[in-house]
């Protein structure tokens, strides 16, 4: 019988629907073809396998076991287990159990199954033996000899009374009984008939186009449906062969690949990852194999792993989806040349697949709901469990408990397990989605997201992560990484680094139960404040909460605070730090650690920002040391915090260059009269002199902040201080600000713009055109009425969303607007004009170089790379820092010369 592409189309007689017929049909066509192989054993042919089936069923019948009797089988993984399954199922009901269970588990499973007998290896010491004896279950010994072929064995034992039903089992007899994994509730027994199993084997055979020439390398455990049906039975249904290894061993895997030359293998994603980590060291072996394809099933395959598998083995990876109740396969990606879609589990490959809502209605493609299936391979119902069957079957469809969506091509995407969806304060989070985001981090090998109880939200999201070998990252870094990829409510509250995640025996990562198991890692131990920001915060909290010490992970509300006290606390925090934190943001994570992290994000990061203590808390400006050490004259950068600041430059400027950031605090208001720039500058000068009473001072500022820096330099020089250099980064000269851009220049830029537009997609192009139109409109308005907020609006369009923060709204907007009506006076000192090259320098040049008009000292012009907003940020920061340093050196040398 040839394998057909469409399993439903039949050629000649219908495909065998019981195991005996399946093997017999193959044995008739090719009796000497290898069926079962094993390391260190001779191959078992189809004829040999059929003989084995006949002999075992006869033995069982003689021992008193017949059809409808449940026989538990506890054997180590390998050819004997595979053949035991086939032979026992052919004459009774086979119930394989994990040989790694302990006595209590054996007790539960053996009694739940109502096992009539237990098959064990002769002389094996297994807890199952004692349990069986104490439960009164007779043990059948399985033995092999030194020359026995792979999978062959003899049985001996004494069961008792004669069998009820001798002979070979038929299609409707239960062949296999397996317990479901029980991750969400008590394990249930799934009975699968011969018809179920054979239908499934044929589905798999069809979707993978298995031929007699195919050989499968089985590494999956044979007490679970994946290995039993996908590897063993499907191979036999096609007339191919299956290599039964003693189990999964990533190191020996390549040895087996070489020795047996399989054309495919199937495994769970965690095993694929283990194989890949060994493939790195055996690159030559992997490439030579003639694998036709690699199959993955049992849990979600991360796309990165899929890509790596394909490139290492140079074979397509077929991701499939299945479950015990479907006798394994439900859906599968098709083989090439049809499309495989990473992130989906493919199209229906056997049973019918549909999406159902809570009420029992089938949904259309594109709508998310519960995945439901029906077909010849689906079990008729759980054993002895009417409530489970009641809830699992609706209108003849079996509810899988997985949530998913079918796209218009029929590809199924699984979005999570319904019971595992985390309900965080009313918002639903799919743990699988979070896992995928975490897996994108380069250091993460495995990630499992799960729910933990939360006093206010009900449940909260936590993730446990295993790092790759030789990779290092902290939980906070990974959490921060995830925060950039997920909506806020989906971001895990904590990311725990663990050395391994408890897995089930089939390689599935279990979510349920992790909360209890890893709970000890989450318990908030008292952590003292670790940096000046946290110390200051803890001090404020301690005062308000009337307590003597506050840990950084302590919940404000559990420590006795209420929402009003939180409001008072945030007001105090704003007095100490130039940030405003919304109350809602604080409620999300009301800890000192998180608050400290926000503050550090909103202010200049670097060596730890701390308000200088001798600045009174009612000061209108704040000076923050970014890097306070060093012997060189300190560099004070006036910063609005919108991107012209030192955060990326700091590390390139060296440890001997002190750096301070100066910015207006929340308490600064607009002066009642006079130029804004002058008033801000004088407050800043006061603040600077509180830090360094006397010069030399090097000042700098970007864009509008540069005007303030210039005025500060004027005031300091007038006060007799030494200012070797003032650096203006891309600062327009206010009086020249609104000169029109010449038309000729616009035409010159046209070809580049055209090329960019051509490269974009339709919606991108539209968005860009809209953006440009807005900027143009604001620019025009600004020229017509310079007093309006035009420049600020124009700038806001260019800001990244995360930069347009509340500080901009409350404090800066009026200042930035007003600072442009400054009229610069002649300046005697030395200036450096840094110009960003990418903003079409030739027509901004006039505005930015006109500072030379007021400079009576030397003016140095330096070109730096990058766009106007990004020239001091990575990746331009290193180069800009080098040039700045050189500039400062030059200024100091000039000053030294002048002093001589």
């Amino acid at each position, binding site marked *: 019988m040839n394998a057909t592409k469409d399993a439903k189309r039949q050629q000649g007689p219908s495909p065998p629907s019981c195991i005996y017929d399946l093997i017999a049909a193959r044995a008739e066509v090719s009796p000497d073809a290898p069926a079962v192989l094993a390391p260190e054993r001779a191959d078992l042919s189809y004829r040999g396998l059929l003989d084995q089936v006949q002999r075992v069923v006869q033995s069982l019948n003689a021992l008193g076991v017949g059809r409808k009797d449940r026989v538990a089988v506890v054997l180590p993984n390998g050819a004997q287990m595979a053949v035991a399954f086939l032979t026992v199922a052919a004459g009774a009901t086979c119930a394989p159990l994990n040989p790694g269970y302990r006595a209590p588990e054996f007790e539960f499973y053996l009694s739940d199954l109502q096992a009539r007998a237990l098959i064990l290896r002769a002389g094996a010491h297994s807890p199952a033996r004692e349990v069986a004896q104490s439960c009164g279950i007779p043990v059948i010994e399985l033995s092999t000899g030194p020359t026995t072929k792979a999978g062959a064995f003899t049985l001996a034992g004494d069961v008792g009374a004669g069998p009820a039903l001798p002979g070979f089992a038929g299609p409707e007899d239960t062949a296999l009984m397996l317990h479901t994994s029980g991750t969400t509730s008590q394990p249930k027994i799934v009975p699968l008939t011969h018809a179920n199993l054979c239908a499934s084997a044929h589905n798999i055979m069809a979707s993978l186009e298995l031929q007699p020439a195919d050989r499968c390398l089985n590494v999956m455990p044979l007490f679970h449906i994946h290995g039993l049906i996908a590897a063993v039975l499907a191979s036999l249904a096609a007339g191919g062969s299956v290599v039964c290894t003693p189990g999964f061993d990533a190191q020996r895997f390549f040895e087996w690949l070489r020795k047996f030359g399989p054309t495919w293998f199937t495994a769970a994603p965690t095993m694929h990852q283990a194989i890949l980590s060994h493939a790195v060291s055996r690159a030559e072996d992997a490439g030579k194999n003639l694998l036709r394809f690699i199959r993955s099933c049992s849990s979600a395959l991360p796309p990165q792993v899929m890509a790596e598998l394909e490139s290492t083995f140079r074979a397509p990876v077929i991701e499939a989806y299945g479950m015990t109740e479907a006798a394994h396969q439900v859906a599968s990606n098709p083989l090439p040349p049809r499309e495989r879609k990473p992130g989906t589990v493919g199209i229906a490959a056997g049973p019918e697949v549909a999406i159902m809502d809570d009420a029992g209605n089938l949904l259309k493609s594109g709508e998310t709901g519960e995945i439901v299936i029906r077909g010849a391979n689906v079990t008729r119902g759980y054993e002895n469990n009417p409530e489970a069957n009641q809830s699992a079957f609706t209108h003849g469809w079996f509810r899988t408990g997985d949530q998913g969506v079918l796209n218009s091509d029929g590809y199924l995407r699984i979005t999570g397990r319904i019971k595992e969806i985390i309900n965080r304060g009313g918002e639903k989070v799919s743990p699988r989605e979070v896992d995928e985001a975490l897996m994108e981090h380069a250091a993460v090998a495995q990630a499992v997201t799960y729910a933990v109880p939360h006093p206010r939200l009900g449940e909260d999201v936590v993730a446990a992560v295993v790092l790759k070998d030789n990779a290092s990252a902290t939980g906070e870094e990974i959490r921060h990484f995830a925060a950039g990829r997920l909506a806020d409510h989906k971001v895990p509250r904590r990311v725990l680094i663990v050395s391994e995640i408890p897995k089930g025996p089939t390689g599935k990562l279990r979510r349920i139960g992790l909360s209890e198991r890893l709970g000890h890692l989450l318990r908030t131990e008292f952590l003292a404040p670790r940096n000046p920001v946290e110390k200051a915060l803890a001090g404020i909290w301690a005062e308000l909460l009337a*307590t003597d010490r506050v840990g950084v992970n302590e919940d404000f509300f559990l420590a006795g605070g209420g929402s009003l006290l939180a409001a*008072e606390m945030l007001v105090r925090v704003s007095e100490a730090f130039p940030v405003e934190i*919304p109350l809602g943001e604080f409620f999300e994570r009301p800890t000192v650690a998180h608050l400290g992290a926000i503050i550090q994000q909103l202010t200049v990061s670097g060596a730890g920002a701390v308000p200088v203590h001798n600045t009174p808390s009612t000061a209108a400006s704040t000076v923050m040391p970014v890097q306070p050490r060093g012997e060189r004259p300190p560099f004070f950068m006036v910063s609005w915090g919108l991107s012209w600041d030192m955060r990326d430059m700091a590390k390139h400027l060296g440890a001997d260059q002190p750096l301070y950031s100066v910015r207006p605090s929340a308490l600064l208001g607009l002066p009642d009269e006079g130029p804004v720039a002058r008033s801000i500058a004088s407050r800043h000068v006061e603040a600077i002199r509180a830090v360094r009473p006397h010069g030399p001072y090097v000042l700098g500022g970007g864009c509008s902040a540069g005007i303030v820096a210039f005025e500060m330099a004027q005031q300091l020089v007038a006060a007799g201080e030494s200012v070797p250099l003032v650096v203006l980064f891309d600062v327009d000269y206010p009086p020249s600000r609104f000169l029109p851009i010449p038309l000729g220049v616009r035409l010159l830029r046209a070809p580049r713009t055209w090329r960019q537009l051509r490269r974009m997609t339709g919606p991108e192009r539209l968005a860009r055109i809209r953006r440009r139109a807005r900027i143009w409109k604001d620019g025009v308005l600004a020229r017509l009425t310079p007093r309006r907020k035009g420049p600020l609006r124009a700038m806001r369009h260019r800001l990244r969303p995360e930069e347009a923060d509340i500080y901009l709204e409350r404090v800066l907007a009026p200042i930035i607007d007003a600072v442009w009506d400054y009229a610069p006076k002649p300046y005697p000192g030395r200036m450096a004009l840094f110009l960003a090259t990418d903003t079409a320098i030739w027509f901004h040049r006039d505005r930015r170089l006109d500072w030379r008009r007021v400079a009576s000292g030397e003016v140095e012009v330096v070109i730096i790379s990058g766009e106007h907003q990004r020239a001091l940020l990575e990746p331009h920061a290193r180069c800009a820092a080098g040039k700045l340093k050189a500039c400062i050196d030059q200024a100091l040398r000039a000053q030294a010369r002048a002093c001589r």
Partner: protein
Amino acid sequence: MATEATTVSDDCLKRPYSPEGVPWACPPASVGLSDREVHVWRACLNGHARRLPALLAGLSSDEQARAAQYRSWKDRVRFIAAHGFLRKILGAYAGAAPAQLRFRRGLHGKPELCGPCGEVALRFNMSYSSDFLLCAVARGRRVGLDVERIRPDLPAVAVARRFLSPEAFAALRGLSGGKLARAFFEAWTSMEARCKATGEGIDSGPKLSCAAPRPREASRWPLLRLRPAPGYAAALVVEGHDWTLRRWRYPQPGAARNI
């Protein structure tokens, strides 16, 4: 205790509602709640040491877990008492034992009754501060309630400037001392009650969005200021009009027990 009913915009209401009966009276043996009434209960959170174990046993497992996490014993006791009384009060209306009630978090974490014994139409909101608990119950109408003990040492002006609407802040100008404190707390509780009623929650913007409701919104959600005790400010916001207010006192131990 003087009763006070101040609303945001009187002229928007169909008829001015007035509270009925003696305020904070002892409730009758069985308290019925029609859908034209809103009941507010006041309970004192002190002096219940003997009842605590029973109250704790009536809480759900996550409420008990949360109670255990409180740092100070006083806060823990208040939490247990507040949630225990809440269950008793709601249980009386729903006709269920306190331990049978199930709560769940709706949008923005607002607690709601759910489950087989929860009367879904029964809406409530609870707030407690220092010694007193206030709980509002209504049928089919959303309610929001906030109570705060007036603390004169709070930097009212700074907090108001930052968190309250400009109008509310302006109203505080020129006041000082005790008057300032009371005015601030009334404004704060009004704002919180509104947030909790509409279920918007404290949002993450710079200004609390419910701090300054639009006039049309304000008329749909009438505001009532309550005076549960000297030195406390409280506000109640209810959805819709045409309702009367009844205020009950939760019986102290030793008094006649109706609940």
